[in-house]
């Protein structure tokens, strides 16, 4: 049933390779453009302060075993005290911070720019692919798929008896879109790949971040049980020395 179509090498030379090359180049270009366009915001004092408080609280949680119980308790009250504890954010104020952040024009412009720099190259490339490269079989994907994928993968091809493995260039575009993410993370170094989903998650969570993480830290400190590790240290040193001497 699977007749083996032999595809012209000209297709490979003039469709597949240029499309991939163009996508890689556009990715690189977008990376540099986003680097240039990133407007440097002066860090807000309040936000930095809250970040540092969170860091201190985290260190306290992690190293609770090293300080005696009384100092731990006093630090804990300092952080979680209802009236003036650092981590306690009254409800009204929390909402306000988020609303203010979203209406702040600078931040909104930044997010818009990042969004656009994601969406525009993708749209343009997709339109280009559709215009120039439609109506013929572009590639053969190596694994068999069911008939239901036919409408998705063989968009420009109007023959209904051709095997579903022979796809149009639109699906080659999508294959490239997903497959080149890994390549980008190798070339552009350190996760600057096309993580558009990650970036969108990051952006939507940005307004919430300060107040929610503060209350999260507060809960964490409230939960923790203090267990002083120092009395055990002598025993542990003895064990370690014994192991060395064996």
């Amino acid at each position, binding site marked *: 049933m699977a007749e083996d179509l*032999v595809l012209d090498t000209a297709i490979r030379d003039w469709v597949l390779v240029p499309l991939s090359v163009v996508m890689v180049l556009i990715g690189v270009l977008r990376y540099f453009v986003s680097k240039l366009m990133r407007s440097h915001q002066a860090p807000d004092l309040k936000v930095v302060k809250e970040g540092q408080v969170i860091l201190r609280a985290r260190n306290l949680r*992690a190293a609770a*075993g090293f300080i005696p119980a009384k100092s731990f308790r006093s630090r804990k009250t300092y952080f979680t005290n209802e009236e003036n504890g650092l981590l306690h954010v009254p409800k009204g104020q929390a909402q306000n911070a988020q609303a203010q952040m979203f209406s702040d024009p600078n931040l909104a412009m930044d997010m818009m720019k990042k969004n656009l720099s994601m969406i525009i190259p993708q749209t343009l490339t997709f339109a280009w692919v559709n215009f120039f490269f439609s109506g013929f079989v572009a590639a*053969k994907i190596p*694994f068999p798929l069911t008939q239901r994928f036919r409408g998705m993968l063989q968009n420009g091809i109007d023959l209904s008896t051709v095997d579903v493995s022979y796809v149009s260039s639109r699906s080659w575009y999508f294959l490239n879109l997903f497959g080149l*993410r890994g390549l980008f993370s190798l070339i552009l170094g350190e996760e600057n790949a096309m993580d558009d989903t990650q970036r969108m998650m990051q952006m939507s969570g940005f307004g919430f971040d300060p107040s929610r993480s503060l209350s999260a830290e507060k809960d964490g400190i409230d939960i923790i049980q203090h267990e002083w590790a120092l009395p055990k240290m002598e025993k542990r040193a003895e064990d370690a020395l014994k192991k060395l001497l064996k």
Partner: protein
Amino acid sequence: MAREGDRGASGGAEDDPPIFNAENLQSNIKSIHYSRTFLSIIGGVIAGIWGFTGLTGFIFYFLVMAAASFGLAAKAKFSICTYFDSWNRIFLDGIFGGLMSFVLFWTYPLKTTFW
């Protein structure tokens, strides 16, 4: 992939609650990610040149990933807890991300159509 010596992620002072040096852990995870991505690309090209199709190709991919996991475990001298926080990091992380790159580079040199 220098992950010896100074890259140990867990502190030696505690063995009940393990403390992780976040920076080293992060860098170890990154090096796993890079090596997996690279291997999936190369594996894709190899699978295409050798002409694997269908299920064989996927089995080849998982074989390559398993070999990569084994190599990484061997490099970490099989004591995972000094370098990572859990076994799952080495074995499962990045497998499905690499799958897409594998398929992309597998389609390129496929023998039955273009050569």
